[in-house]
């Protein structure tokens, strides 16, 4: 079989190289070509992985969860085939496998670690036949592309009952839509947060899944932790949050700088200090932990892997902006040193709310650059900005620059959230917007405060290209 596949892989690689020369993206082109030549390529390649595959899906946190799992598994000495650049549809995963294919048919890796787009989960599970499936959450995201949440949950349930029935499930107990997928199954590992001190006063406006998946009656939430994640039960039919065997206690959130918690597992307990911020990253860490446990990794390696996990591309990533970049508009500051960018991807209300909640923990007033694009990968529908709770941050905005293809509606959103009009600048062009936003920044003549950059997905890619071109950062992925 490999003798038939090998020339196709070679051809796909060649096309990918040509595409790169032509300026095209290299993260999915070779894979798409290969799948055209050999529709079963994913299955054929994946079965060569000696330890099989695991897949991770969610609307929010896939890339970071996979990065944490990779950090743990690498520390545990497992060679990975991992789509770390986040290309998470069939073409991207096939490209990752092509990159690992060696002459003679072997793969340079033992275990496949794949984050999978929520819409592609069914096909990927059928082809990859993963030994474990980690499902993190389902929040409203890009409804123009994906349809409604309950429809996605239904599709997930169908694939898990069909091609995925042999996989071990790793599920978020705190998300009713996700936890329900494990009700009638064996070999389910649940993770969750057991810290009532983090409870929010009520459910976010944009919360989903308020109603029982089984009978439709409203859930009673004991504790709401994040969006619609929390401790819930259905008063009508008695369905309730499963008790997680992997959980966090005594969570302490340290603004954009990190989070600490006590990690409790069947294998014991250990304190963890994450370099990644926010309760959402605690959830990501719990998912990665449960997945690693299901693969037989020890708790010590898990804790070390989590603590050394770095921010994925644009997820609370730090970039020091060279002084040269701050030329044009400089003068407001006077403070020395470089200005630090803190880049926090926002793409849907639940994710944006967690970013806003995290920023609100940082003292002082903030300079923000928010970039809203409406390209296909962002979701063409920008309605979601009206579901995100920008009100959380409005009183703390010192200066706001709005950019991107839908900058005007974004600026309007902040105006209606209560940010004074004089504090809002509108600049559609990203390069000029960055200069404008980065100028100044020192309060009281001290060290410049960070500039918080909140881009949507394609805006993040554009920002990355801009920063690379200016020499502020290296290309992270080749």
């Amino acid at each position, binding site marked *: 079989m490999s003798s038939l596949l090998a020339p196709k892989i070679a051809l796909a690689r060649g096309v990918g190289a040509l595409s790169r020369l032509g300026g095209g993206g290299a993260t999915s082109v070779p894979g798409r070509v290969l799948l055209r030549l050999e529709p079963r390529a994913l299955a054929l390649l994946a079965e060569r992985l000696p330890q099989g595959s695991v897949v991770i899906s969610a609307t929010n946190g896939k890339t970071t969860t996979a990065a944490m799992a990779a950090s743990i598994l690498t520390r545990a000495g497992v060679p990975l085939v991992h789509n770390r650049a986040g290309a998470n549809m069939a073409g991207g995963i096939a490209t990752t496998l092509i990159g690992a294919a060696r002459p003679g048919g072997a793969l340079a890796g033992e275990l496949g670690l794949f984050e999978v787009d929520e819409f592609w989960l069914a096909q990927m599970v059928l082809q990859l036949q993963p030994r474990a499936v980690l499902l993190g959450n389902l929040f*409203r995201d890009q*409804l*123009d592309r994906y*349809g*409604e*949440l*309950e*429809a996605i949950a239904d599709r997930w349930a169908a694939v898990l009952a069909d091609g995925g029935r042999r996989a071990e499930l790793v599920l978020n107990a705190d998300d009713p839509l996700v936890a329900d997928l494990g009700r009638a199954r064996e070999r389910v590992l649940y993770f969750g947060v057991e810290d009532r001190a983090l409870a929010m006063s009520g459910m976010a*406006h*944009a919360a989903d899944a*308020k*109603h029982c998946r089984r009978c*439709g009656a409203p859930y009673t939430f004991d504790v709401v932790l994040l969006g619609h994640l929390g401790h819930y039960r259905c008063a009508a039919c008695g369905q309730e949050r499963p008790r997680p065997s992997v959980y966090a206690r005594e969570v302490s959130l340290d603004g954009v700088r990190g989070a600490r918690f006590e990690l409790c597992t069947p294998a014991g307990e250990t304190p963890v200090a994450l370099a990644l911020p926010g309760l959402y990253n605690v959830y990501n860490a719990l998912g990665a932990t449960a997945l690693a446990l299901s693969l037989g990794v020890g708790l010590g390696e898990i804790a070390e892997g989590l603590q050394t996990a770095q921010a994925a591309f644009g997820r609370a990533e730090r970039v020091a902006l060279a002084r040269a970049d701050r030329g044009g508009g400089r003068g407001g500051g006077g403070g020395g040193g470089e200005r630090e960018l803190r880049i926090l991807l926002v793409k849907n*209300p639940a994710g944006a709310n967690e970013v806003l909640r995290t920023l609100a923990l940082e003292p002082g007033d903030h300079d923000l650059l928010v970039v809203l694009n*409406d390209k296909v990968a962002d979701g*063409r*529908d*920008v*309605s*979601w*900005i*009206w*579901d995100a709770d920008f009100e959380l941050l409005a009183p703390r905005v010192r200066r706001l620059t709005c950019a991107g*293809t*839908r*900058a*005007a*509606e974004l*600026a*309007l*959103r902040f*105006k*209606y959230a209560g940010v004074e*009009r004089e504090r*809002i600048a*509108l600049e559609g062009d990203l390069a000029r917007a960055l200069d404008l936003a980065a100028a100044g920044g020192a309060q009281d003549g001290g060290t410049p405060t960070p500039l918080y950059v909140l881009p949507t997905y394609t805006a993040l890619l554009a920002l990355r290209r801009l920063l690379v071109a200016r020499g502020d950062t290296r290309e992270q992925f080749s």
Partner: protein
Amino acid sequence: MSAGVLRVCALYPDLMNIYADRGNLMMLERRCGWRGIGFELAARGLGEALEPGAHDLFYLGGGQDRDQRACAEDLLATKRDALHEAAARGAIVLGICGGYQLLGRSYELSDGETIGGVELIDAHTVREPGPRLIGNVAIEVQLDGRGDSSSGSSGGGGGSGGADPDEDADARRRPVPQPPRILAGFENHGGRTHLGAGERALGRVVRGHGNDGRSGLEGARRGSVIGTYLHGPLLPKNSWFADWLIATALGIEPWELAPLEDALERRAHEAAIRAAGA
């Protein structure tokens, strides 16, 4: 109708809110507040009765299929008559996306089941085979009759005669032909809505799909009852329409509202029109 206070009733705000419908309520609230007009927001959920005279504007947004079904049953059981009474009195009933579908006679789902509507509009919706109708959309609307839009401070298109505040009230209330204006937004619906023979569309599709992807018609309007597929935060993209709703619900003309500083609102409107390719 209590002059000086806009009394809004959001129907099922916890269920029918999938496309960020609260952006619309936020627009109404702020734009009243900046003008010194009072704003009262009530919410009525499953099983709760409506007082037809207690509100000037009823808002019904979009929801997931399961929630929309529950709300449809509840509308018929507990709110239908009150909504008819309120509409007859001149209160605005604004249905958006799923809410629009429920204002009609019925909604036939793909499994053959039919959901009954409140029949404020002569329309029926069918979930036909074929793709969902998704994308940016721009429609041309002509809001003649009471509460007609004229040369307001926001949006494009200048007004013309009939907007002179010195004319007497009767003349002002008389329908005057007005230049058409653009509503821009985003649509995402599986159902195709067909209007009855005598029913008027809200507007003509300039770019996008509209009611059924074929007729070139979008939405429906019967008196103060308005339905549209331009979903979620429609009013942030069309502040002139927010003002039209406020004025009409209060029984005054849009030009009687104090002008606001609307530079960002205008740019958001223009960007939404551009996104639709109009």
